[in-house]
């Protein structure tokens, strides 16, 4: 049954999207505003973007964010893929248990994850003699990325022919060859989706970074710091860039998923 889109329904839909996206639209529009006013349009300019790229604090935060996102995404993808293979081959009861454990960080509030990691790092830091910094930030990002990679790889493993691994062995592969030459290529779309997802999550994370980065600053932390002082339209510019980057990544992830579904549907 298809619900009728009455006038009330259409209005509700409009309001929903309006409240969701109007603020972002305003932000993007005013990132091109020629004065610092956030209420009156005074003319078009790229000045804020130019200023942005001359701002050393922002550039260094951008560098940190990109570095931690790339490293965390790659490390989490490697760890998460092997973990998914391990979980997949467990006995049913253990597998269910591991999946539940895996889901906890996904649904857990970021602030809890952030605070608990912070406490852990401070505690271990006292014992082993290190401080919060890029290292702890990276470990934190890898930690919260891994469950998403696992969730992205597991469905691909489930789709595999049960005998695929044995078929590779049968044709002369050692255990490692079978994994790298057959299993990995077959689950590759899931692995890359996991990688993109992890990268996206890392780029826009604020809460967990805030608690684990110490003196290091990521882009989202820099934006937050800027809002505390005088609000400059540079924030609009950097937020616009961040928003568009995430949007682009999400579009890529979704398009890939649709393509894979079409391909899978075409098979049957």
């Amino acid at each position, binding site marked *: 049954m298809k619900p009728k889109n009455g006038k009330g329904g259409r209005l509700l839909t409009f309001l929903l999207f309006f409240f969701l996206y109007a603020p972002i639209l305003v932000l993007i529009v005013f990132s091109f505003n020629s004065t610092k006013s956030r209420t009156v349009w005074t003319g078009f300019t790229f000045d804020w973007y130019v200023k942005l790229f001359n701002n050393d604090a922002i550039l260094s935060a951008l560098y940190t964010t990109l570095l931690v996102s790339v490293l965390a995404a790659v490390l989490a993808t490697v760890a998460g893929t092997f973990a998914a293979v391990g979980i997949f081959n467990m006995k049913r009861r253990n597998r269910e248990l591991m999946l539940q454990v895996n889901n906890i960080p996904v649904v857990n509030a970021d602030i809890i994850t952030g605070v608990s990691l912070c406490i852990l790092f401070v505690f271990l830091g006292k014992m082993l003699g290190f401080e919060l910094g890029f290292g702890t930030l990276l470990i934190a990002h890898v930690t919260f990325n891994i469950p998403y990679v696992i969730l992205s790889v597991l469905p691909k493993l489930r789709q595999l*022919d*049960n*005998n*695929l691994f*044995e*078929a*590779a*062995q*049968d*044709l*002369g*592969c*050692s255990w490692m*060859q079978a994994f790298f*030459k*057959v299993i990995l*290529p*077959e689950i*590759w779309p899931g692995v890359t989706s996991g990688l993109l997802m992890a990268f996206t999550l890392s780029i826009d994370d604020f809460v967990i970074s805030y608690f684990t980065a110490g003196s290091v600053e990521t882009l989202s932390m820099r934006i937050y710091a800027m809002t505390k002082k005088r609000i400059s339209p540079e924030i609009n510019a950097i937020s616009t860039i961040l928003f568009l980057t995430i949007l682009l990544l999400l579009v890529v992830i979704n398009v890939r998923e649709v393509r894979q579904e079409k*391909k899978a549907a*075409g*098979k049957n």
Partner: protein
Amino acid sequence: MSEKLINLENIHKDYGGKTVLDNLNLYVRDKEFVTLLGPSGCGKTTTLRIIGGFETPSAGVVYFDGKNINDVPPNKRPINTVFQNYALFNHLNVYDNIAFGLRIQKVRESEIKDRVNRMLKLVSLPDYGQRSIDRLSGGEKQRIAIARALVNHPRVLLLDEPLAALDLKLRKEMQRELKAIQQQVGITFVFVTHDQEEALTMSDTIVVMNKGRIQQIGTPVDIYNEPKNAFVANFIGESNIVPGVMHRDKLVSFCGRTFDCLDGGFAPDEPVDVVVRPEDFEMVPPEEGQLTGTVRSLLFMGVHYEIMVETEQFTWTVHSINRADVGDRVGLYLTPDDIHIMHRS
């Protein structure tokens, strides 16, 4: 043909306390087509997986060419497998699937090309090299899976219910083709199926299994005509099995009558099971029959009718090309070689 290429000795297999294979003894000769036949859960696939090296027996020894291969992993055995759902590699095209094993062995690309193309011809898909796997039909996947296994020149090819997913017509076609391929390449095939007809048409030797034990080993003709016990008689084709008494060699009585038969070697007056195949009855007028009864039901089966004839002691399943109507009185006639005697099980 006499050499034992594969020899399984006293094989046991348990899964968490449950016995799957119970003291299995079996050998396979070089260039032989052997079929492991039985209902699901009888242990036939486990036996195949033990030969392939995917399972290790809980006890017992697997010999290949006289050598104990219990600890040899599957990738080191001169054996290849065609899996039930083909297990083709979707990320590779047809050519690369077939070339996979040769590339692992680091065979020269020029030789690989030769051998892959020869295989594609063997399975009658000569121009399929560049196709992707998900564009193939079930039958084509089947052929590619066979080509991918055979291209490695294995001494033995294991086939795990390879035709189960195909429709009836294609299955018959593939049965004939598989047999032809086996004769052409001249290697040993060990084939697993639950389809008795498939086993009868393709095999040199059939191994009938049930509940982890071998019930009978023999040629298709032996197994069909001389089933050793009630399980084999029932599983291979349809059978009428009635209790009887073997008075002496070549003389048996059942259903209140005495019949001449061809079997011997039983104790005097030993209770036995008597097997009569439905198609071995001759339907005659009541006064000429050794047994008389009333037709209870009639089914048209295409070539023949399946007629249930109720006599005083037993309701017989009879296959006849002649029609009889429900309620008719008919006679049943048996010659000595229509009657098969089995030890009571």
